[in-house]
Each structure stands twice: as structure tokens, then as C-alpha cells.
């Protein structure tokens, strides 16, 4: 679609809070979440003409953001591997788990996320913050709907013991 900055900003306004919450759950710290959203928005804007119409904007942005987070997480783990610095990896985890008050995400939810695989996190975060069903998530992540459903169930089961 043809889209100028104003149009883009208007569409973005409707979803940015959810985008950020999604990124926060995935990246587990504010700075990385902020970067991820910012990067995703810039690349979304650059590629906007590949988007057919406005209706698809939200799922398009979530897809880009999910990919951006994935890439960033890969880079992060690669970096840790390279530095052989497992401590910092631990501390990064702990930082999230013990609950930084400013995150705005309850300690329980933060902890619960830590028990999930990255894919489960992505699926559950897309369900919650994007409001997508298993079929839609499947399209976004190139998985079939059944796989999404079972991964979601498994993930939620893991979270249940903490959240229930």
C-alpha cells in the first residue's frame, strides 16, 4: 500500500502499546524491547508498499516484530556463547525474573514466561497481545494451526503452576 508517515503513525498509534508489551515479554528488558519495536517499525515502514492494505497492518507489524525479537535473541545468545560468559546470561534472566518494578509486568507473569521455550513465548505473547487465534498465529509463524494449538497448551500448562 501507499503510505505516508502520517498514515503510518496513525495505524501505529492503535497498536504500539501491544507491540511494546509483546516485545517486553520476549526480550525481558526494557532497552532491548524498545530497540526491537523501534527496529520493527522502521523496517515495517520501509517495506510498507509490500503490504496489501491497512487491514493487514497489525498482523504484519506483529510478524515483523516477532522476527526482529527472534533475531535479536539469537544475536544475544551468540554473543554470550562467544564471551563464554554464562554469568551475564544468568543475571539477565534473573533481572527479569525477580521483577523490576518499572516493567509494569507482574512478577508472576515474568516468571511464568521464563519457563517457556522461545517459540512458546512467541505463541503465547501473540495470543495475549495480538489477540490472534491459532490459525492466524500459524500464518504468521509459518506453522500449522494444530502445532500452534498444542504448543500453546503446553506452554500455558507450564505457566499455570505459577499463575494459578
Amino acid at each position, binding site marked *: 500500500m*501507499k503510505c505516508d508517515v502520517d498514515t503510518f503513525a496513525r495505524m501505529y*498509534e492503535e497498536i504500539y502499546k501491544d507491540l511494546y508489551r509483546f516485545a*517486553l515479554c520476549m526480550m525481558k528488558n526494557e532497552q532491548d524491547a524498545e*530497540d526491537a519495536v523501534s527496529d520493527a*517499525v522502521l523496517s515495517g515502514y*520501509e*517495506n510498507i508498499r509490500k503490504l496489501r492494505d491497512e487491514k493487514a497492518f497489525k498482523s504484519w507489524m506483529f510478524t515483523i516484530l516477532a522476527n526482529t525479537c527472534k533475531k535479536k535473541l539469537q544475536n544475544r545468545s551468540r554473543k554470550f556463547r562467544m564471551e563464554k560468559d554464562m554469568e551475564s546470561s544468568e543475571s539477565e534472566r534473573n533481572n527479569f525474573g525477580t521483577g523490576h518494578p*518499572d516493567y509494569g509486568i507482574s512478577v508472576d*507473569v515474568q516468571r511464568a514466561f521464563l519457563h517457556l521455550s522461545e517459540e512458546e513465548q512467541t505463541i503465547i505473547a501473540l495470543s495475549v497481545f495480538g489477540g490472534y487465534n491459532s490459525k492466524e498465529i500459524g500464518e504468521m509463524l509459518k506453522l500449522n494451526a494444530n502445532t500452534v494449538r498444542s504448543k500453546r497448551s503446553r506452554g500455558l500448562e507450564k505457566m499455570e503452576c505459577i*499463575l494459578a
Partner: protein
Amino acid sequence: MEKREQNLLYKIEVGSENVVVPDSLKPENMKKKLEQCAWEERRRKRRRQWKFAGAAAAGIVLVAGITVYQNRTRMVKSDSAVINSADSSDGVVAKSVEKCPVNKGNQENQKYYAKSYKEIRKYIEASEKEETAKGSTKEQLLCADATGDYSNTNVRQEGVDEADVAKTDGRYLYVLEDDGDYVSIVDTKTNMKKISEIKAPKDETIEEFYLIEKNKKVVMICSNSSDDDYEDVEDVTRSSLISKQTEETQVVTYDVQDKKHPKKVGKVSQSGEYESSRISDGYLYIFSNYWVPENWKKKHPETYIPYVDDSLMKAKDICLPDGMKGCMYEIVSSINLKQPDKIADSKAIFSEGGDAYVSNKNIYYYEEEWTGNGKQEKTLLRKLSYKKGKLAVVAQKTFRGYLNDSFSIDEYDGYLRMVVARGKTNAVYVLDQKLKLTGKITNLAKDERVYSARFLGDTGYFVTYKETDPLFSVDLSNPKNPKILGRLKIPGFSNYLHFYGEDKLLGIGMDVDKKGDVTDGVKLSMFDISDKKNVKEEHKYTLKDVYSTDVEWDYKAALIDVEKNIIGFPAGGENRQMYYLFSYTEEKGFQCNMKEKIYGSDALSTRGIYIKDRLYVIHGNVLKAYSLKTYKKVDDCLL
């Protein structure tokens, strides 16, 4: 979903209700950021991106885009104070010319050049004060129709050749392999068969190459910068960029008389990352970017002055910008193709990063200056003459506005014509040999922006776009008084314009619905320009569900030959890239003769080359041959 599960999802949502979104992500701030990027996009510094052209792997494509953007955003920040507040209300700002009058004759004007290394240091220091952090900027620019019964690289300026990743001499195909390690030579005489390969020098990557048919030479442009810098998307900072002080561009020439045994005949090098190159009148002109390292030392010129071959450049060969600072050199060297082991001449432009347009006589280096609010862009234009390899800075000037790409600037009959975007409007400028403004048209197409332009003799054509696609035609026969001849409004826009025989202009772009929001797909338009005052869209063709083509930003991806009546290009949508081949007749319009899947890695861009009645679709290591009579696949070859 079970109730239990729904409850959990709800709990998660409630548990994250208090998230406070950082200020930088607030819509109003994000909008500002996008505006900066929109501006930066015009620079089209997408050299890296072309390697990720295949849209199939969305993740990869996106990440590549991000890297470019990170560079850009930083660049924007750093540029914000570049502009002195020169009054620019009247279009071209003449101050630089007054300060540096152009000497009569062909003498170089010493005022443009640095007097000493000391003077150069002042610029570097000034630049450092701003904690400049800039991304590297690369691009290929510039088109000529094929001669003989095979195609040549689509170039910007007829008569000025450009390097590419695949070339032919009418029998052999020369193809740069995926990894940049080899140029393979493939014989097409009977069945396609690889007969030899030329290897990149150790630790070097071949960026692109030339084929000099007359002397039977292959000239490879190599660099020692690896693409791995993509790995650390986050770490593109100034220090990481300049830590590679050894960055160097090499020109390696091979004699290919004997196709089976290519023989190395020469090598030259210069500092900096390869940006672009041209060949004109038997000389190669090579452009590279050299960044001044952070830890440069006053007493050691070798830490801040670029090398050409093994000697430091002289201060008198370094041209200074208007603004009193700079941290990057654009190095231009010429090489006589008959003496491939020697650099004939070199000049460096102290610059903040720009692009080159190379006419048949001159190099125009244009560099946007950013004012911070996106409203008062200026462009610093420098003109270097080149004649038999001899380079000389002849004029420089700042004008208001910016250029969409190198097709928006064109030299003809001693005059330089430009279509520029100026704030919310657009303008046409005509400049004389000294870059003095002779005529202009301003306030064109308010709120629209230039998408493409092309000049033919005394006439210029350009497309602007917001909702509909006005194609303007402008009469430039009187340099003092350029005049708009006509404007045609149609839906959609063209990103690339190419003259298609007499009185026809081909536009490749996007079809967009009347409201201007929904893209219908890639569109081909044929304009009848026989009546310049009344240009008509003769026929159009929309490729449904195909949303992008490399041609939009890389004109070398286009294979267009009027005599052969072929229009070929790669294009894709959400699915795999396909190679499309069209023919055109006035009666029937566009006819799609071929639509074939492109195989191979997404790392390189796709090229179509024809030899006689065969079309070769080349994509990295995969070559496919199709008959131009039946449009069926007849052969293939894996390198």
C-alpha cells in the same frame, strides 16, 4: 481453546497492564523518527540491501533493512548540525561559487583543495566534536541499450559502462558466484558448460566486475570488507566501523584471451570501502569511502590520510567541503585499462557521504545536507571533470532541495538539468558549466514527491506521486527558460523510466487503487510521448499479487531491448521471485511471454542476459537458459 487456557491468557494480560511504554516509542516521537528515515530513504543507500533482494526469507530481509536503518538514523543525527544557515530562499545558493570562481580553461582550481594535512586535520577535529557516527554508504548508480545480438548491463548513462555481477561477450557468460570468491566463465556455444574460473585474491571478496570486450579483459573490483558485519546488528557504531583501518578496495585485472587460462595482468588498490565505479573512454574510475579512524594521530598522517596504491594522498589532491568539518573521504581514482597495474590519477573529496552521477565528461558528486527538521534540505554538488583519466575539481555549489536518484540529474549539451524535491514542492533547475543557475521552474506538484525521472535530449520526464501519478514533460531547449509541456495523471506510479524506441517511454512501478491506499501489484506502463504536450498512457499491465521488483531500486536488474522487443525483470510478492519477460506492440500492448521461478540463493540479485535467441536467467550459482522463441527452458548449469 479451553476456558482454563483463556483464563490464563487473561491473567497474563492483566499482569502486564501496567507496562509503561518508553517515550521514544510514543506515536508522536516515532513519527519524527520515520520522517527522518523517509528523508534518508531518498538517499537510496541500498547497496547492501540488494544482496538480500529475494523477499522469500522475510526475516532476513527485514533484518538487513534494520541494519541499514540503524546506520541511517545515526547518520541523520550526526548530520543535523552540518548546515550553516545559508539563506536558501531562492533555490540555488551561489555562495560557494563566488568564493571559488572557476578558472578559465581546464586548469584546476587550487581553492577547492586542501593546502596541507594540517588543514585536513581541522576538518576531522570539527567533525569529531559532533560525535559523528555514520553508517557506511554504498550504491551503484546509472543504462544503455544492447548492441549486437546480446545484452549489456543496463546503465545510467549511455557510453559509460558499469560493473555488474553477470556479463556476456556474445558467447561466454561471466558470472559472479554466490560467495563472491569466483567469477566463472561459462561457454554457451552448445550446452552451457563452465570452462574456468577466476579466483578472488586471498581474503578479498569480489564485489562486481567488468568485461572489456575489446582487450579481452575481466576487471574485478574486490574488497576486504566482509559481509559479516551484519552479524552484529546492534554494534554498528563508529568505532566498529573504523576498527577496520585496513579496509581497502582492489582492482584486479585478468587477461581472458585464453578463456581456459585467465591470466592476472595487474592490480591496484586504494583505501576505503568500495562504493561504485564506471568505465569511460578506456579508463576505469573507481569510488571508495574511507573513514578517518577514531584514534588518528596528528603526527602520523597515515592514520588519517588515505592511501592510493602504496603512497599517501597529497593534500593538494584532497578537496574540502563547504562546511568546516568531515570525517570521510570519497576517493576517486582513474586507471588506464591498458595499464592495469597503475593508478593514473586520484582525487579525494572530503565529504559526509553522497552519490555520484557520471556523465560522458564529468563526475557529479551530490551530497545531501540535513537540517534536522526535514524541511530545508540542501544538496552540495561537486563537479569533477575527467578527461583521459585526468581528474580535476571544476566547480562546487549548494542548491536547495534533494535528488531522488541519479536519474534526476542529467548533463546534456553543456548544461546540467535536475529535478529536485524542495520542501513540499518540486522544482526543475538548469545549471551551466560552472554550475550557475540559468533557469528554473519551481512550485511543482505540491505535496507530492519525485518517484522517477529521465531525460532525452531537450526534454525531461518525471513522475511525482501522492495519489495519482502525474507524468510531467518539460521542455529544456532554452536553458534560461525551462517550461512544463504537459502532465498526465493516472493511478499508481512509476519508479523507473526507460525510453523504448522512438516516442515511447516505459514506466515500471506500482498500480495503486484510486484512493491511493491499496497496492494492486507491479505495473508496466507504456507512454506515448510523440506529442510531448499531450503524453498518453498507451497500454498498461498489472502483475497481480506481485508487489516488488528489484528494478525499483536497482536498474541493473532490468533487461530492456527495443530491437529485440524484450522487457525482462525479476519480481515477487509473498512467494518466490519469478523472472518475467514481456514484449510490447502498439496494438496488443504488453504480452507476458514468460514467468519462471528463480532458483538459487537469495544472497545475490537476479540478472537476465540474452545471447541471440536465448535468455539466461542468472541467480548466483544457478543459470537457466530459455528459448526466446518458445519461452521454454532449454538448458541449465550449476556453478
